[in-house]
């Protein structure tokens, strides 16, 4: 199948310089007039949107962008651009370096069954380690 074309698109913005696809999210760009920056190549553009329609640009511009795209990827989906300063920051529920992982202790340090288990970990429908009040040890 031929590659999808973004020529007719407004909010899906293919960078004229580097062809990276920038997502001009509706929160930020539905009604917008100012400068933005391609997340792929850092080229600054002047652009205007009205009710989601791109009515101006992208035309080359100078200086700092007013808003960053919400996300960007290469058109083959292989590479995406999410580093700070490339696109708007994501949501954080915790510190960025606090990766989500299986948890067997609550924030109070007590036992909680918030991580995967195996059949041998259960008595009936209940985790053994909770019933016995002992820290969780995965079966080897």
């Amino acid at each position, binding site marked *: 199948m031929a590659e999808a074309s973004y020529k007719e698109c407004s909010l899906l913005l293919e960078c004229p310089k580097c062809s990276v696809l920038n997502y001009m999210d509706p929160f930020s760009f539905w009604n917008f007039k100012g400068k933005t920056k391609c997340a792929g190549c850092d080229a600054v553009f002047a652009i205007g949107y009205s009710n989601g329609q791109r009515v101006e640009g992208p035309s080359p511009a100078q200086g700092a962008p007013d808003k960053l795209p919400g996300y960007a990827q290469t058109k083959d989906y292989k590479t995406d651009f999410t580093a700070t300063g490339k696109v708007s920051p994501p949501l954080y529920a915790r510190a960025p*370096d606090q990766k989500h992982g299986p948890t067997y202790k609550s924030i109070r340090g007590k*036992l*909680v069954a918030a991580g*995967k*288990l195996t059949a041998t*970990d259960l008595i009936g*429908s209940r985790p053994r380690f909770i019933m016995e009040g002992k820290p969780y040890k995965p079966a080897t």
Partner: protein
Amino acid sequence: MATPSFEEYCRDTFDPKKIFSKPEPLKGKRFLSCTQYILGPSCANYLAELGAEVIKIELPRRGEPMRHTTPFNEPKLYPLSRWLPEMGTGLGFFGANHNEYFLSVDFHKPEGQAIVRMLANKSDGMVENYRAGTFDRWGIGYRQLSQTNPRIIYQWLGGFGGWGPGRKRASYDILGQAQGGCFSVTGWPADKGGLPSKQTIWIMDYWGGMMGTFQMLACMYWRDNISGLGNFMEYSQVQGAQRHLSDCIALFGRHGLVPQRWGNWDTLLSVHGIVKCGKSSYPNSKNPQELEQGYILVSAYKDDDFAKLMKFIKKDDLAKKFATHEERVKAESQYEIYAALEDWAKDKTKEQARELLDKQGINNQPVWNSKEVSNTEHFHMRGELEWLDDPTFGDLQSQGPSFHLSESPPRHKWAFKPVGADNEYILGKLCGFSKTKMAEMEADAVI
């Protein structure tokens, strides 16, 4: 002996630690919860808080869809079921399933329907939120169940109801919010480029469930004290939306007025709005969310409070200009007044603002995030937030019941259980099924 102060009296009367020594108001009552998502489950759940035996019936193995819903796909509690221990239940399920007993039954199958019928004949009520007419088709709707159990109180809940032009439309909370009119009043004014906004929570669902519960309790009152008869009720989320926007509807009907969004201020009272404080309360936090500046509700709508507030922020001219409420509640006035307040707050954290306003005796309330609320002793002391020692999952922070009773209070016993955790208990106790029979039904995926 000295009479305790009112504070002491309340702390004792409503002491969460004493709740389990007090009777349960719905002791001995039983309800079936054939529900999924939030609207139906929450309605039955508020009954479970009150001590009724609520049996939640879900499809075998994987349970209902809300178990597979969790923010960021991350927090889950394990096991999902004894058949699928490596899967967990998402926290979307949390909050609408406390205290319940979990039975897995495939009610698409006739044997499954027979089980539901057997249970319903022993129950005070049924709560269901499947597409209207589905249970009727399966022979377990109100028409059928009331034949053998005329006392049954049957509450159906859904988006649009089972009759009328929209009867086939799906039922989702934010669809209810959108189509019901709720969005039109929350968010920022159109002329400031603002768009309508949804409420954080699945409010049409959870609050809709509360409305359903209230109606069920009133129908129980009528049944048990007056008529001896059961009842059939239908709750529609979009109707809930219109019900609580009744003032907007009245204004439209009489004056053609369409309500404005007014951001964080109030259309009826001034000063009574949330203003931005310029500084973050946690500038060194590693959690980017905590870097955001703070917000605080400032409330000084009475003439003397307003004058005091304006003088405090060194705006005597505004105190004079807007001395009457009539003057300061006007739209233009509010822009001016709140600009002055934000100017005052721009170099303060919300805690600093609070301290200064407290000293002046001006009502205020900082806008707290879920961590700050979790760390607020007031709510834990009152049992409105609590740490459950959940028998299945362990140490869980949970919301508590939404109201207090002095003699027969609601309470949370456990957060929820895995799919089918109570199959043997319920089917043995209420259906008289033997171990062999249950093993057969399990093999046939009936349970």
